[in-house]
Every structure is written in structure tokens, then in C-alpha cells.
């Protein structure tokens, strides 16, 4: 596996951190939480994450609590996304978010030449419901205009093969590295000749999210999880390969909740996730993002709401897939998720799928706010709306 020169270890993370601020939340040992219903939940090592002081890139980033929502009526036509419209939406949104007049200046606030930039997409639901090729092309085009070398950009997710199935191929993105933590070889095997999973080489055992829930998998499932036990290891894509991450999830529901910025990062960056869905879904979404490889590297969130879904997610169920014709942009993943949550909730009510709002649906946002990752209170969010066409 290729490693970039910007390797980040647990030790140099501590060295590079600015030791300020977070003294009050530093704790030792593992903590357990109380669920909304008052029952104790499994303990996690979130206290470990909070030991690391923040730096200037840490969430919620340069614009806490600010979200730009761009709507373009002609961005999707007959399931086809207009690259031109998306480019326009991205430009307007970036300028509005940053308050600059030139798009190069806007991008320069987040990334600079020489840095390795990882674009975290979501290809989980196949061609029907994944981050669109068009929005990623628009981001890459603007990054290049802002001086970022193509060789320093990579598209990534957990599953390399899903990236390819969703259209993230060398053909569509010539010269851009496309990589995943879980991967197969040319013959379709997850393991090498010795039976070792290729994915094992791609996780960083220095960085892990521990939760008191045991992951046990059958032989068919293990390649998708990489390891069993109580640790979920961070991908080396986050800890070593990328200096900065631009998060590009798709606007999707997950039951009465949403799977947007925080979920895309949390479940996309670690191994052994199967065990975390049942009791710790909300906690995982919030807590994994509080670990430095995510918290201190994700500089921008761009939600692809051109085509999304309001029910049946995170899988693709065509009757619930709709054109939202929207893009959300912000540095604060919690605030962006809160606005996305609102869009999906309104659509669910409109379609008579949900009658009333369930506080459980946004519990992960409140957890994330308590971890100082962003603003969950909708009244405190600076929500700018732009309508195009």
C-alpha cells in the first residue's frame, strides 16, 4: 500500500496539537452513556478522543453553525444530473459560505497546494443512490482551479469495490486515486495467498474506537468488517494518507433519522461496524467523529442532495428516491446534518410516512454538539438559502 509523506501517528498528533481549551472534558478510562429511555448503554473510549487538544482545523471548522443551502430547479432532469448546474450551485454555495468573491479564494481557506486531499463519498447504495459523479467532478474541477494538483486528490470510502460499482472509476476520474479500506484483488478475492485480508493492511491499529460490544462474524461477513472484537480501527486513509478530508455524503434517511455528514464519516472510517448498529448507532455517529483523524481533518462538508431518499435508506428503494435538487455546504457537520434532517423530515411528513418528529432521530446531533463538534440547535444555525434557475 502506498503511504503518503504526511503520515500521522498517534505520537505526532499529540505533538502537533495545540494544547488549549479542552481541559474540562479530558477524562480517563471508558465511559458509559444513558439512552433516551434511561437504560445504560455499553461503555466506549470516547474519553480517549477528548484527551487530544484541538487545532485550527478541528470541527466545527471555520464557520461553526453556518449552512448554505443551494436549490437549482434544473439540476436534475429525468434522473440525469447537470454538471453545469452542479458547478454553479457549488460555486454560489462556496462563495456564500466563505464570504469571498473569488472561488479560488474560497477553496484556499480550506486546502492548499501540496496537501493530500481525500474526498469521502458514499457509494453504499449502488448507482441508484450514491454520491453523484457530477458533484465530485465539480469539486475536483474547483480544487484544480485553486491550485491543487490532481495527483494530490483521492476519492475514498470503506469499500473499494462499491466505489467502482457506483461509477468512481479511472475512466470517469482519470489521474485521481480511488481507494477503499475493504478491498478485493483482480480475482475478486478479499484475501492474499496466505488467507490474510487485504483490508488488514489498510487499518491503523494505533487508532481505534472501543465499545463494550463484541463483534463476531461468519466467514462471508468478516471481509466487510476486517476484524472482530471490541475495537473498530481507523482506516489508514484517514490517519496516514489524507491531510485534509472533504466529506461528500448523499441526502438519505435512516429510519426516522438521517445518514449524512457524521454517519458517512463515522461508519465510513472504521472497521468492525456491524456490532455498532444496534445499541450504539447514534453514539458511533457522534463519537467516532470526535477522534482526531476525523475531527481535525474534515475541513468541509458538501451534502449531495440532488437525488436523495426519504424512506428505505440507507439502501436504495426506488419509490422513495426523489429529486431534492439541493446541495448543502458547511464546515460544521452537525449544523449541516441538522438542516438535512429537517429537509428529510418535512418530506416524510408530506408523503405521510411520519406524523410527528421523533427526538431519537436527532439524538446523535445532540451528542455531537456535546462533544463540541458543531451546532445542533436549529435556532442557532445561520441557514442561508440560495435559489438558482
Amino acid at each position, binding site marked *: 500500500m502506498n503511504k503518503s509523506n504526511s503520515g500521522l501517528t498517534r505520537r505526532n498528533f499529540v505533538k502537533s496539537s495545540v494544547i488549549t481549551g479542552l481541559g474540562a472534558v479530558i477524562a480517563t478510562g471508558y465511559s458509559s452513556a444513558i439512552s433516551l429511555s434511561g437504560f445504560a448503554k455499553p461503555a466506549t473510549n470516547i474519553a480517549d478522543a477528548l484527551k487530544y487538544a484541538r487545532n485550527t482545523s478541528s470541527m466545527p471548522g471555520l464557520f461553526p453553525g453556518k449552512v448554505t443551502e443551494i436549490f437549482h430547479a434544473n439540476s436534475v432532469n429525468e434522473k440525469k444530473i447537470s454538471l453545469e448546474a452542479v458547478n454553479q450551485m457549488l460555486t454560489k454555495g462556496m462563495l456564500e459560505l466563505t464570504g469571498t468573491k473569488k472561488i479560488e479564494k474560497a477553496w484556499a481557506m480550506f486546502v492548499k497546494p501540496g496537501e493530500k486531499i481525500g474526498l469521502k463519498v458514499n457509494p453504499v447504495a449502488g448507482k441508484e443512490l450514491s454520491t453523484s459523479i457530477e458533484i465530485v467532478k465539480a469539486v475536483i474541477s474547483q480544487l484544480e482551479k485553486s491550485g491543487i494538483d490532481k495527483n494530490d486528490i483521492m476519492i475514498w470510502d470503506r469499500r473499494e469495490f462499491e466505489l467502482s460499482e457506483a461509477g468512481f472509476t479511472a475512466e470517469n476520474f482519470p489521474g485521481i486515486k480511488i481507494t477503499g479500506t475493504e478491498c478485493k484483488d483482480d480475482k475478486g478475492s478479499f484475501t492474499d495467498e496466505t488467507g490474510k485480508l487485504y483490508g488488514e493492511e489498510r487499518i491503523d491499529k494505533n487508532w481505534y474506537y472501543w465499545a463494550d460490544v463484541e463483534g463476531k462474524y*461468519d466467514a462471508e461477513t468478516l471481509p466487510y468488517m476486517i476484524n472482530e472484537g471490541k475495537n473498530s480501527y481507523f482506516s489508514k486513509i484517514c490517519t496516514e494518507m489524507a491531510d485534509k478530508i472533504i466529506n461528500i455524503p448523499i441526502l438519505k434517511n435512516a429510519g426516522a433519522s438521517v445518514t449524512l455528514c457524521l454517519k458517512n464519516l463515522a*461508519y465510513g472510517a472504521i472497521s468492525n461496524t*456491524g456490532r455498532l448498529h444496534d445499541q450504539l448507532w447514534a453514539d458511533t455517529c457522534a463519537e467516532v467523529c470526535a477522534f482526531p483523524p476525523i475531527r481535525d481533518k474534515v475541513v468541509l462538508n458538501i451534502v449531495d442532495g440532488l437525488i436523495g431518499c426519504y424512506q428505505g435508506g440507507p439502501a436504495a428503494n426506488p419509490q422513495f428516491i426523489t429529486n431534492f435538487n439541493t446541495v448543502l455546504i458547511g464546515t460544521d457537520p452537525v449544523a449541516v446534518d441538522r438542516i438535512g434532517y429537517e429537509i428529510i423530515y418535512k418530506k416524510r411528513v408530506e408523503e405521510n410516512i411520519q406524523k410527528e418528529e*421523533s427526538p431519537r432521530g436527532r439524538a446523535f446531533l445532540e451528542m455531537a454538539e456535546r462533544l463540541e463538534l458543531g451546532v445542533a440547535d436549529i435556532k442557532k444555525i445561520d441557514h442561508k438559502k440560495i435559489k438558482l434557475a
Partner: protein
Amino acid sequence: MKFQYFIGLLLISFLKTEAQPAVLNVQKIGLENYHIVYSNYYDGNSLWGYMDGGADLYLEYGFTGLLVEEINYKGAVIKCEIYKMKDSLAAFGIFSIQRHKCKFSPEIKGSHCINNYQVQLAQGNYYISLINQTGDLSVQQISLEIASKFSNSIGEKEIQIPDIQNFRLKNQQLIFINGKIALGNVYPQALNYLENISDFSMWMLPADNKKEPVISLITFENSSQQAEYTQLAFPGIQFEKSARVKLNKGGYRMAQKLNDHLVLQAEGKIGKELKKMFETSE
């Protein structure tokens, strides 16, 4: 070494084939002149490999295996997802939670739902989803033809729904829920009193509009779970045979014990007729 590797591969492919239960496929329904573009089988928890977190809902209902066959038939590309569930109720349940704004066809025997881009079918232990890319009328017809062949091949009758008048009248909207994930999808407010009850199932009739209540028939594993529900759903209220509580958002939650593990509940704005039904047994 190479020989051992080859034997190993053979053994793996043999075991994989052996592990696959007899799942219905496109070949078995008698479809002719089609071409398989893609095919994969997912067993048990490996469903996470296909749909990541979306798998939990299927696993909660009780999932045996999924065969995905993407076929090219009469010039149309159709993705056939053939889910074998643990029983017919599980198949109906997963179908019921995913149907929306359905059209129907007399050519399909089982519970089904037709949309422009998808035909869904629940029959016997199978939940089948046929997805097309274009939504064109001609492609919808091709999907319907395939769905009809699946329906004829399964040949099993539909599941029995509970004998409650409202359920019978609106059986095309009835949802079967078998756990917290499904509940969170369609009736999240009920998690307030059911989240910590480990084994329950529910037949749920959603409200058509704000003037109607959600009506549900909840089956608990035992009487102690039923007692836990009554405490959480009707805190501080004596619950012999029936009870009601006024909701903060307006309307009522009313329930009636049908036996020591079965409860009929209505939640929302409850009309006179329904109210009377609950009150007669108070």
C-alpha cells in the same frame, strides 16, 4: 504451493455453493432468452456487504438469503432482488414497510406494489424487488411479466391478517412490524414505550390523515412484557382491561388487553366509534 492454493480455492467454491439454500432464481421461474449481467448471493450477516446498515432491518425481520440477479431481458435491464425470509410473515413485514403509493395488477397473486421503477412482491417466504432504470411503460410491462412468473412459481397463498375491521378494510396499508428498527422507520413515537421491550411484534394501520389515529395490535412474548408496556405507555394509570391517556400533542392513547400478551391500541385523534369500542371494556 500453487496446487494447494488451487485445491483451497476449489474447496472454498464448493463450500460456498453448498452453503446456498435453495433460493428461487430467474432460471427456475421459466424465463427464457435472458442474459445475466450480474449475479451474487448473500447469506445471513453478509447482507451487510450488500447494503451496509440497511441490512439490519432485514436481519431484524428474519433473513435467510438474498440472490441478486441483474438480467437483460427483451432489451431492458432489470435488477431482481430475491430475498428469502425466515417465514411468510417476515416476507410480508419487510414488504409492508417498503411499499408506498402502489398500483396493482391482477396478474400477480401475492401482496404486491407497482411503481414506475419498481415492482415489489411478497408471497410465501419470499420478498422480491424488481428494479428498472428507466421507468418507461414498456420496461414496467417487462418487470410485471417477470413478477407474474415469480408469483406463479411460488404459488403460495397470502398471509392471514388479524380479524379486525379496520385492518380488513385497509389491508393495502397494513404494516407488520417485528422489532425496534422497523418501528423506528414507520412509527417512531411508539419507541417511547416499546424501545426496551425485547420481543414484540405489531400489526399497524397508519393514519391516512391527521384526523385519524394509528391503530395497532401488539403481541408481546409474555405477560411481564405486556405489564412493562402498560407501565411505560400509561404511566401512573390503573390498567385492568383497558386504559387511556391524554397526549400532550393532542388526542389520546387508548388500549385494550385482549389476553395476557395481546393489546389493541389506538393513538391520535380517536373518533366516537373507536372510543366506544375501547370504553365498553373499561
